[in-house]
């Protein structure tokens, strides 16, 4: 039951992302598509390097690093 709620939370957020992009494609003057929005944000070097670092880390984490590295007892 708890696992289902946790997974549903992830799916809900991903669904929100997909819906946002679908809406943006139909109403770009009201809601910028993610590509345009990122293009604007990434004018700043800090944001650009931050986005690229996050993207790179995602691949690094799943392809090379130990995927699950828990702490605690």
């Amino acid at each position, binding site marked *: 039951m708890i696992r289902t709620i946790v997974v549903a939370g992830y799916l809900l957020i991903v669904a929100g992302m997909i819906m946002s992009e679908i809406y943006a494609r139909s109403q770009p003057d009201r809601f910028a598509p993610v590509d345009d929005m990122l293009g604007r944000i990434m004018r700043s070097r800090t944001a650009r*390097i931050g986005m690229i*670092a996050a993207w790179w880390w995602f691949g690094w984490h799943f392809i090379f*690093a130990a*995927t699950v590295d828990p702490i605690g007892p």
Partner: protein
Amino acid sequence: MTPPANATTSRWNVSSILWTIVLAIMSGFQLWRGAYVDGVLFTAITLLLVIDSSTGGRFRIFRKHFVAPRWVTVSIVLAIGLVLVIAPRHGLVDLVATVLIGVAAFILGWAPASARQELPARAYRASSITWSILAVALCLWEALAFIFSTYLPGGEENYPTISVLLDPFLNWMPGKVIFIGLWLAAGLALLRVWGTNRGKP
């Protein structure tokens, strides 16, 4: 060390302050969870960006931008993708390939961004706020799952992180091909490889 054409993009403003905080939180979280290499990398990037913003974006890696023909870029990315697919996960080959990708992306990302077509400001504001909320929600949900899986009964079975959910998919060869393909495509999109004026200030 000459000022770039659009040095204003590397000065302190609300966006750069928020991004620096996000990167600092990421550094702290990685160190806290015991991923020291990840933590040190994010800390180094954060410090470098703090120095860059504090000096008005004067630091340049190269005087000229590297603008390779698209077929060259795509060929290199396809070759690296093939290597990543064939090589066993968590091996030395993966380490070298992902580090090379990271260094190349960092160098390309450091260069000034190209100009883009403008939409109304309200469209950017609505989109930025919505995506920020969604991204923060995803990070919090993931962080809570990780903390609960560490300290509460049931562990990863009850509170799976994204890593736990995706791991079996990545151990399946077609899943690995899909993941690496999407990851590299996202990287090319972030670096604006398909833009018509990449690298022009």
